[in-house]
């Protein structure tokens, strides 16, 4: 077999992607090297760094206005005082354990929503009867705000962990379920026919073709669900129970401990950001093929 026709393809494609490749036209390469200044600025202007600087500026403005007493309100303490309190709260007090309580209920509720949502979504796409059975129920339950469910959950599950996990589960399941269904339904006809001609069983087709093909959409659903789960976990802690970060914030506000209230809010922002960051790292690893094929 001659290889001449094919090997040119990927080599040519790989070339512009590799910055270390020697430039074919030295004049252009040289010019790019001699003028790094504006290029670097332009490159940074498109990164997250701009947004981080923006946040720093806003926080700086907060500190400036409160420290100089230009803006004075018992509702807005000095930013530096909040940060000092934050440091103290981390060293002692209930903040750390309240964060762990929040993370624990969020994780359990999210894990349940993820597993049940993926399984039901894929089954709905794979078995017409399951779709016919569940679609009306889901579309009926989905628009009900979770807040309307909470009284029922309290009746059946009390006001402790079980109720909170139940609320997180019900709020978090729909994005995973619907995206898993959409992903599993949109497997291309050629891929389905491939499974058929290789004589894969129903279970093999589901495991080897449908679920991996649906993975990009499943991850979209998981990411939306995760942020909803965190929100509902905080709200559930505010409504019921006597620990957790949501309780910490509401309790601080009711005790007029405004600094602690802000500490709680800042902590939630940080927790949410870190969770999303970790999730994206996992997604990038699992779906490396997907992002790669989108570029290619």
């Amino acid at each position, binding site marked *: *077999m*001659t*290889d*001449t*026709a*094919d090997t*040119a*393809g*990927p080599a040519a*494609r790989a070339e512009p992607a590799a910055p270390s490749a020697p430039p074919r036209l030295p004049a252009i390469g040289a010019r790019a090297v001699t003028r790094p200044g504006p290029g670097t600025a332009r490159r940074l202007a498109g990164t997250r760094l701009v947004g981080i600087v923006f946040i720093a500026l806003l926080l700086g403005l907060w500190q400036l206005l409160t420290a100089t007493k230009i803006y004075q309100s018992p509702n807005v303490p000095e930013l530096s005082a909040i940060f000092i309190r934050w440091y103290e709260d981390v060293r002692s007090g209930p903040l750390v354990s309240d964060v762990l309580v929040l993370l624990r209920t969020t994780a359990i509720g999210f894990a349940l929503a993820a597993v049940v949502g993926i399984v039901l979504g894929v089954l709905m796409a794979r078995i017409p009867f399951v779709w016919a059975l569940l679609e009306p129920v889901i579309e009926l339950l989905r628009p009900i705000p979770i807040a309307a469910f909470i009284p029922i959950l309290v009746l059946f599950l009390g006001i402790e962990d079980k109720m909170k996990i139940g609320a997180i589960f019900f709020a978090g399941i729909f994005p995973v379920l619907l995206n898993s269904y959409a992903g599993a339904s949109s497997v*291309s*006809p*050629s*891929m389905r*026919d*491939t499974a*058929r*001609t*290789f*004589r*894969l069983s129903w279970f*093999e087709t589901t495991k*080897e*073709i449908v679920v*991996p*093909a649906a*993975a990009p959409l499943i991850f979209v659903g998981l990411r939306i669900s995760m942020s909803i789960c965190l929100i509902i976990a905080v709200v559930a802690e505010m409504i019921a129970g006597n620990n957790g970060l949501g309780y910490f914030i509401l309790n601080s506000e009711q005790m007029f401990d405004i600094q602690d209230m802000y500490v709680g809010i800042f902590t939630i922002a940080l927790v949410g950001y870190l969770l999303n960051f970790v999730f994206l790292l996992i997604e990038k690893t699992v779906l490396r*093929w*997907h992002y*790669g*094929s989108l570029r*290619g």
Partner: protein
Amino acid sequence: MRAPTADVVAESVSKCFQVHGRTIQALSDVSLRLEPGSFVSIVGRSGCGKSTLLRILCGLAKPTSGTVSVGGQPVAAPPRQMRYLFQDYAQSLLPWKTVEANIEFGARHPCTPEGAAGPAARRAVVERSLQTIELTHTAKRYPWELSGGMQQRVAIGRLLASDPQILLMDEPFSAVDALSRANLQDVVLRLWEELRLTVVLVTHDIDEAVYLSERVIVVNATGNGIDADVAIDLPRPRAQVETRELPAYLDLRRRLLRLVLD
């Protein structure tokens, strides 16, 4: 190498589609018999139902009437000794698997139950397939990192790893560039000769059909039966340049083009 044993027989196969309440007759009363080990091309005008016929032959579509059998067994689902090469390789290869893992997929779903049992045997089959399609150096890459021609070679490697007797191909080379196409044609020719496969090729490219086949079947432009069944008695081995210059080749090409175009 084992001898191919199964012949493919279609008897008065018809196919209707319901489109917006209207019935469209895609194929009517097509009968054919494909000898074991033969290389047969099916050509015909666009929309004549030749791809539908191929899908019916391998059980991907059900005929409205008529029967198909492979090795004497009536076809209801894709038969075990048959594999299918799709036109859109990008949608047929699994993009989440590397080249190697895609080929391993073929070895894990073999045509014979005894084929490639156990990891060591599978490993050997994958190695052999990679060598056959000359893509050992891209084993760890993903299909979407390769050119179209190379991707279709991966798809061929995946079929080989499952060790089929009958290979059906639906316009397999129409999405790749001309040079890759010539290369793929010769890959298929070589495999057909070495493995004594039965190959059924659906194509709109008359030159390709004449160059590769022992026999070219022309499906009627409206799907109403078969217009012609032409034996291609060109010498083998065939070569891209020399074969296509033979007067006999040009005669066959002219005759088939007239049949399809007129």
